[in-house]
Every structure is written in structure tokens, then in C-alpha cells.
């Protein structure tokens, strides 16, 4: 808040003035710094319509530091002249003076002084004119400083070139009465208090306006992880579609459920060391005859869980149709890059019922992807050991203007279902996709390490919006 005394004085000046006052004039007449008046103007503006203040700017010429020195003590050349006694001065001594160098050359060109290079002990400088010389430079500067007499352009430019003069712009306010002008102002309150409410004093008070341009104070909050926010939405979509969640809390799986039950022969490339994490401890639980099937691994897909659940379903007294889903981690011993990690989350949907068709699979995929906001789908024949037919799901990417793969799907092979004991007329359709890819697209993340794992950028977690898929 500006000094109350200055504010009062300013208001009185404004009241007396017919038209208004200039802030610089007020400052000069009060003998205070202009900035003090500016402060008073700003605090009055903040009160509303007490005053109006119009910003004006004016230009005028002002002496520079060097210019002021000359106005006071004479031009360098004149000072050189007066420094030289009648017996002369050694040039080297003259040059030691602060104004010596500049003054010497100017005085030489004015022909006020002369040099005798023949004297003993180095060149000597002597006066070349009578005592009374005309220091025009100083005179012109004094003119500007004092009486504000206008100089000719030519003179001004000459002095400007010598850096003795500069043009300055002065900003000032033209202050006049506002619609709610008053010489007495009420102090503004910053906040409403319980006392004001109980006493009713708020009715008489004026309140300082808020600055709505500023940001608020960030709440002290916890945050959910973006990938898991997307997981929640996928879970929600499955539940909306009538799918029940499978328990997937078994990262370590036997090769039997991960491969054999899914019709992946023991020579299948996926069973190679370089794609799968094998366990050394706990390693084998059974004898060597079925060694390969009983090798423990980190599951390479959640379809191993689906297989276990379908087997359990087949063991129920009576077959009842089911729709199952799961979203959990799977592991691949693969080469890592910006979009691939050794573990990722797989989303899987499975429907088991009598008489399901390939058209049903495409229909249900259409419904699922529509909920994600993806409506343009097409299907490409593909190969997968445990599904026949197998289809890759492509969606049209409006940004890239091309079809991109968004998932895999298929009908489980009878070689997989019949040994589990499911009735012969039961078909099982299924599809899968990764959770990371849609999340990276949704939150605009290019490097998967910034999303998953300890190298996560917590600021990104703090800043990530809620996850609304499809709308």
C-alpha cells in the first residue's frame, strides 16, 4: 500500500486542479521520487473509479554523466588548456590527467595549444592562444541543463555523438477525477472474516478485488498411476459388457498351461530360451518324461490363465456360457527398446458358448472397440497356434491416415478345448491387446520407461488427467 500521506496529498492536488495533474509535476513539487507517486496512483486505481490515470510519455534531452561533468567543470579541451602553465607542460604529464587524452586532441584541433617536440626530456605542450577562450561545448550543455533553450539539431547531434547528451523518454500519468472521486478513501479489506459476518460490518466495508489472473494453490493430493487409470477403464468396459474377471495372480506358470495346453508343440519357436524366462528355482516339479511340459516359466501370455479357467469351467457339473476377462502382467525375454519391455500388461477377453461364430467375434470386437472410441475396424487373416481362424484387428488411424494393428483375436482350436472336457458344440472366441500401447497413445508418451517402472516421471503422474476412453 502506498504511503497514506502521499495518497492524501495527491487526492487534494487532483481536487484543486481543474483538468488534472501530471505525476511528474506532482513529484517535483513535492520533492519525492516519481516512483512514489506512481505507487500512489496504482493503489488508487485498484480502489475502482476514484481516479482515472492516463499513461503519457514525453521525450526530452538530458545530459549524460560525462555531459554533466563538462557542464560543471568545462570541456576536456578547455580543462587541458587551463592545466597548462605559461612555462608549458610535458606531454606525458598531460596525458596522465583523466581528461588528458580526449582534451589534448580536441584542443589541438581547436588550435588552442601547440607541441614542441624538440625540447629536452620529451615533447612539451604550450598554450597557443590568449587566456580568455570560448568553451562553446560547456555553454551549450549549460543551456540545455538550465533554461531548456532549444538547441539547433546540428548542435544536438554533435553533442550526442560525443555521448554528452541523450534523448530520454519519460512515462508519467495524467491524473484526473474518477466517477467515484473523493478525497477521503476507505481502507479496503482483504478477506471476509467471521467477525464481519457476525457483526454485519461486511455491509459497510469495501473489499480488495481478487487477481483472477493468478493460478490457485495446488491441492495437497495423491495421484493414481496413468497406466492403472487406463486399466480401471478397460475393467469397467468389460464389466459393462457382462464379462467377469479371472484371477491372474500367478506370474509363474508351467510350460504345460502356457504352451502345451494351447497347442504349441514343444518344438515351437516361442518355447526357445530367447523368448521366455525360465525358472531355475523352483525349476521342475515332475519327472523327466514330461520334463518339457513341466518346466516352470514366467507366463508369456495371460491366455495360460484363460486355459486354466476354461479347464475349471469344463469341470463344472453343467456347462454354462461365460464371458471372462483379465488384465495383468506377462513376461517376454526379448530385446528391449523404446516401446518394448520385458514385462507388459495383456488385456484379454474370452467368450465360451454354444454356436458362436466368427461373425460374433467380429461383432463383439466392434462393440469393445467402440467403447474405446474406435469405430472403424477391419480384420486380417493371421496365424496363431491355438486359434483357428485367427484375425489381426486393424483400426483406421485418423492421424496417421492408415490402418494400424490394435489387437489379435481368434477362435480357440478344438484340439485345445476338447481335451479340457468342454462339450463339442461349445466354441470359445477370444481377443487380446496390450495395455501399454493404448495408454502411451492416450497420454502422449513416447518412451515406455517414462510410464512403467522406477524411471517413471512423477511429474507426469501428478499432471495426468482422468482417463476417459471413447468420449
Amino acid at each position, binding site marked *: 500500500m502506498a504511503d497514506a500521506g502521499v495518497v492524501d496529498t495527491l487526492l487534494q492536488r487532483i481536487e484543486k486542479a481543474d483538468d488534472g495533474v501530471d505525476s511528474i509535476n506532482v513529484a517535483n513539487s513535492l520533492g519525492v521520487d516519481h516512483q512514489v507517486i506512481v505507487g500512489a496512483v496504482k493503489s488508487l486505481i485498484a480502489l475502482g473509479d476514484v481516479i482515472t490515470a492516463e499513461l503519457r510519455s514525453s521525450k526530452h534531452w538530458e545530459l549524460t554523466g560525462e555531459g554533466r561533468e563538462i557542464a560543471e567543470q568545462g570541456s576536456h579541451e578547455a580543462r587541458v588548456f587551463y592545466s597548462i602553465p605559461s612555462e608549458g607542460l610535458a606531454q606525458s604529464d598531460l596525458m596522465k590527467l583523466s581528461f588528458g587524452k580526449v582534451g589534448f586532441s580536441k584542443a589541438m584541433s581547436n588550435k588552442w595549444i601547440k607541441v614542441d617536440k624538440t625540447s629536452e626530456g620529451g615533447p612539451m605542450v604550450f598554450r597557443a592562444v590568449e587566456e580568455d577562450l570560448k568553451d562553446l561545448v560547456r555553454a551549450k550543455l549549460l543551456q540545455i541543463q538550465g533554461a531548456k533553450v532549444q538547441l539547433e539539431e546540428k548542435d544536438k547531434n554533435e553533442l550526442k555523438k560525443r555521448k554528452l547528451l541523450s534523448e530520454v523518454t519519460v512515462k508519467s500519468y495524467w491524473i484526473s477525477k474518477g466517477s467515484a472521486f473523493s478525497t477521503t478513501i476507505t481502507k479496503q479489506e482483504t478477506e471476509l472474516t467471521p467477525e464481519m459476518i457476525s457483526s454485519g460490518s461486511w455491509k459497510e466495508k469495501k473489499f480488495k478485488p481478487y487477481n483472477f489472473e493468478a493460478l490457485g494453490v495446488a491441492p495437497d493430493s495423491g495421484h493414481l498411476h496413468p497406466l492403472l487409470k487406463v486399466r480401471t477403464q478397460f475393467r469397467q468396459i468389460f464389466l459393462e459388457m457382462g464379462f467377469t474377471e479371472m484371477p491372474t*495372480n*500367478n506370474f509363474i506358470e508351467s510350460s504345460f498351461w502356457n504352451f502345451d495346453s494351447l497347442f504349441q508343440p514343444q518344438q515351437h519357436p516361442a518355447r526357445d530360451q530367447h523368448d521366455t524366462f525360465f525358472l531355475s528355482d523352483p525349476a521342475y*516339479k515332475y519327472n523327466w518324461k514330461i520334463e518339457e511340459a513341466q518346466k*516352470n516359466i514366467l507366463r508369456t501370455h495371460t491366455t495360460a490363465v484363460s486355459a486354466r479357467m476354461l479347464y*475349471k469351467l469344463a469341470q463344472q457339473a453343467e456347462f454354462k456360457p461365460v464371458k471372462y476377462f483379465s488384465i495383468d502382467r506377462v513376461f517376454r525375454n526379448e530385446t528391449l527398446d523404446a516401446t518394448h519391455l520385458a514385462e507388459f500388461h495383456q488385456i484379454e477377453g474370452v467368450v465360451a458358448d454354444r454356436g458362436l461364430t466368427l461373425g460374433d467375434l467380429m461383432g463383439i470386437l466392434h462393440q469393445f472397440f467402440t467403447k474405446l472410441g474406435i469405430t472403424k475396424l477391419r480384420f486380417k487373416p493371421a496365424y496363431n497356434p491355438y486359434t483357428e481362424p485367427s484375425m489381426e484387428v486393424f483400426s483406421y488411424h485418423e492421424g496417421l491416415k492408415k490402418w494400424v494393428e490394435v489387437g489379435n483375436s481368434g477362435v480357440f482350436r*478344438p484340439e485345445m478345448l476338447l481335451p479340457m472336457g468342454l462339450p463339442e458344440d461349445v466354441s470359445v*472366441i477370444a481377443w487380446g491387446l496390450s495395455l501399454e500401447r493404448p495408454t502411451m497413445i492416450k497420454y502422449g508418451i513416447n518412451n515406455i520407461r517414462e510410464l512403467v517402472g522406477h524411471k517413471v516421471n512423477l511429474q507426469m503422474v501428478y499432471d495426468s488427467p482422468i482417463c476417459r476412453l471413447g468420449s
Partner: protein
Amino acid sequence: MPTVSVKRDLLFQALGETYTDEEFDEMCFEFGLELDEITTEKEQISREQGDGKASGASEAVLYKIDVPANRYDLLCLEGLARGLQVFTNKMDAPRYQRVSPASGEPQRLIVTQETAAVRPHAVAAVLRNISFTPERYDSFIELQEKLHQNVCRKRTLVAIGTHDLDSISGPFTYTAKAPAEIRFKPLNQTKESTAVELMSLYKTDSHLRHYLHIIEDQPAYPVIYDSNGVVLSMPPIINGDHSKISLKTKNVFIECTATDLTKAKIVLDMMVTMFSEYCAMAFTVEEVEVVCPDGSSCMYPELAYRTESVSSDFINRQVGIKESSESISRLLTKMCLRSWVTGTGDQIQVEIPPTRSDVIHACDIMEDAAMAYGFNNIPRTTPRTYTVAHQFIKFIKFPLNKLTELLRQDLAAAGFTEALNFALCSQEDISDKLRKKISETKAAHIANPKTAEFQVARTTLLPGLLKTIAANRKMPLPLKLFEISDVVLKDETKDVGAKNSRRLCAVYYHKSPGFEVIHGLLDRAMQLLEVKPARGEGYHIQAADDSTFFPGRCAEVMVRGQSVGHLGVLHPDVISRFELTMPCSALEIDLEPFL
């Protein structure tokens, strides 16, 4: 998925039509192929080895096409062109025929008992009066390589050898001999060497060294001789130089040696069906008699056609279409599965050619019908399956994820931020860095980790959270993090010897330890889980010793008399070992007791 690289113009010539890239891509998509890349030899070399090496390389356009892993019949230009020609009704699928030689005396390959221990099977065939061009020859070599990498499982299951029949004379003998006794001039070498010398020579060969392990430790190596003792090949490593084929070769002797006879037959069938097109009598293959050690003999290649019977009703029901039997037979015929309506009911006879070893069940035939119909022409329907969704399967009753979903929302509401860390980590993370011995951890160990980051499955969530803090030290304090996820512990009662355990872990990292903050979070979690603070039926904490925590600053969380985890101020050594500098308190409990 194998990728086949073909010259676009040669392919279009074989297809008898030119397409735009888009048109060709579209046709591939419908046929289950993917036009992965359009490039040139020059572009490829310049990308892989730099512009300098690329000058003078061919600028002919190459199509790189991804082929499904079970379609060995599409691994070369000949097969691709044939498949697409039949698919687009431009030609009928050829009939492959095994024929006897004009002389009436087939070539013979005699397999001796010695091969039984190392590589017991062999099959062979002859391509008679073949005309090679440079392109055909390259494709012939390339197909062998593609088969070696895929169905042959890098030559472990099957290895292919091709020879100029006019440079050798039958009968041929497939046997196994001690490496020192095998001596010949191998392909593209100038002098004779013993097998022992060759194995050591090829140790540094960028291509062949990958196959040495297949026979290296065997006392006897497989070898094929002609009747004059000329070495044809030492499978699965290298052929002899003497019988090598060239552009001028007219008659090709093909042998496949194998540890898997079925795969050997498939591979031989693929080689001859693809290239018999260029024989004087197109699509005929001259038979070879293979005599087994027990004296029995078989004629190869098999080139077996088998017939399956399917009903159009089955196909219509599975696919979700309503096509007539005639229409379905036409669709299947487009897929090289020649089919005809029998007239009995809605039965269709389907002939599976030797090129389609991927067809093993009626569902494979159904898929081909669906592909020929066009996946994207099938009406998309909604299954009538009526189900009520649950957040857990009723006959398993395990609402763990439901509990997790609900709890994590409220922990975030309590001011903690959710982290998501890897289930795999280094041994050090769960032992040394936490001041524990690895033997105490019940950790499951990975046998084949590529790096230390994947040595074990985590047994605690704490290291992940501490590493998350370390990676985010520039963030304003305090850092309050939590994670609800699974750890893995060895458990003898499970079929795989290990089980997951769902944990809740939280850390508070600030200038003062903040035990009361972490304790407060435990109280809040218990309130959410409806457990009251009380001994006996409720929860309480009691002083405990744990080497991960600062002495005197660790407590055990007791719920209904059972320990479910710990909380406390971390030991300064633990803090330093995770490259942290501030005091830190932590909580980790099991969630499954609260189900």
C-alpha cells in the same frame, strides 16, 4: 513371422498383372499377408552399411512381405505368385505328380544304422530337366534358407542339400563316421579338409557357426557319399564342392536329413512343389528310393493328397454366413483346396494338397473358406450369450482385484501417489540392498536372464518404490508413494512351486523420518478395511527386529493375532544403497488376509 523379399516386377510378371502399391497391399491383406516394406537393394545396403557400399547396387523395387509362420508354401516368389493367382481365380492350382524316371530305375539313397544315434532320417527327390535363370536360381537358394530358418528350426530338425545329379552317381549312402575319417572339399573351398578341421574353420564363420552345436559333440558325424566315395554333404553343416549346383545344372538331386521325419517330408515336398514348375515336365518330380537300415524302403517325395469331408452347414455355422455347398466348394478351391460337392446331404469333399501341411483339422478348412469369403464381408453379429458380470469368478471366489481397485483409490485420496514397478529385479535389490540374505527371501530365480535386472521375481515391493524415489530426486519433498501389486514367493504347496502375494507398500521420504505419517496411513488403511485398533480381534503394532529397518524403529503389524507385515524407519545403509540421502519410513503388508 517370416518375411519374404521379392522383386516387384518379377512378381507382377509371374502374376500376369501390375498393381499399384495400394492395390497390392489390399490384396495381401485379404489373403493374410502383410506388405511390410517397399524398398530397393540399394536402399537396404545404404541403410545397413552406409551410402558408400550401396553404389552400383540394384535399384529394382523390392516388396518385403510378411508370411504367416505356418504357410511354408508362401516362402518364395513361386509360391506367393501361385497362391495369389489361384486366389484371384487366374489359374487352377497345379497338381503335383511323382513320376518314375524314364529308365525305370530310380535313384537310391541307402541309410545305414550309424545315423540312428545322430540324425536318423533322410528323404530325397530329383528335379529332372530343370531350367534355371539367375532369378530362379537365387529364389531356389533363398527358399532353402527360409525353410532352414523356419520349419527346419535352424537345421536342428531338418537340413537340405541340393546337388548337380550329373556330377555324381548313385546309389548314395547316408551314414555317420568319426569326424577324423570324413575328408572332402567343402562348398566354395579350394582344398580338402577333415571334418575336425572344418568344425574348427567354421567356428569363425558368421553363418555356419550357428549350426556347429547340432553335431559338434557327437562321436560320429552324418555324411552322404555317392557310389564313388564322393562326399555330397556333411549335414547339417555343409555340402561338398564337387556336386554343387550352378545356373547350368539340369538335374537336381535334393536330400533332406532330419531328426524329425514328418518335418523332413514337408520340407522335401515344399522344395519340389515350388520348383518343379521349371522342369521340362512342369510340376512333376522324379522319385528316389530311400532304403532304411532295417531293409524296408520308401519312395519320395510323398506328394500326398488327402481328402477330408466337411459339411457346408459346419462352415456356415462356424463362420456365421449362409452359403450354398457349391459356393463353399468354390471358395475353398480358391485357397488351393480343390473341393467338390458330393451330392450326399451338404457334404463337401476337400482335397488337401502336399503344399498345405498347415491344414490339420476341419477348423483349418473353415478358416480358408472364411478367408476366401473375405473376413470383412462376414456380417458382424452380437452373440446372444447372456451373462451377469462379476468382479471375480463365482466358483473361485477370490475378489482380490476388486479389493485392490477399491483400496488404491482411497490410498490416493489419502495423499499418496501410485507407482508401478517391474515384477522382475536384480538379486541385489531384494537382498544386499535391503540388508538381507538372498537365502532368506523365498525368491524365484530366473535361469536365463539377459541382464541383472531380470535375475529374480521381486519378493517385496519396497525396492521398486525406493528406486522410483531415486529416479525422481528433483521432485519437491515430501515424496509419498504407494503400490499395490504382486510379489512372488516360493511355495511348495503350489503346482508350480511358487505363488503370487498381493502387497500394499508405501513410503514417506522427507527431511524427517515421518514414522507417524506412515503409521497414520496404516491406521487409515485399517479403517478402510474395517479392522479396529485393538489387540485380539483388531490390529496393533508391536516392536520388531528387521535388518532393513533402523534398530528400535521397526514394528510388526499384527491383525487378528497374525503378523501381516512391517512398518518403520529404514536403516541408513538401506537408504544409501538405493542412492537416497533423506530419512525414509515405509510400510509393507499382505492384503490377502483382508479378503
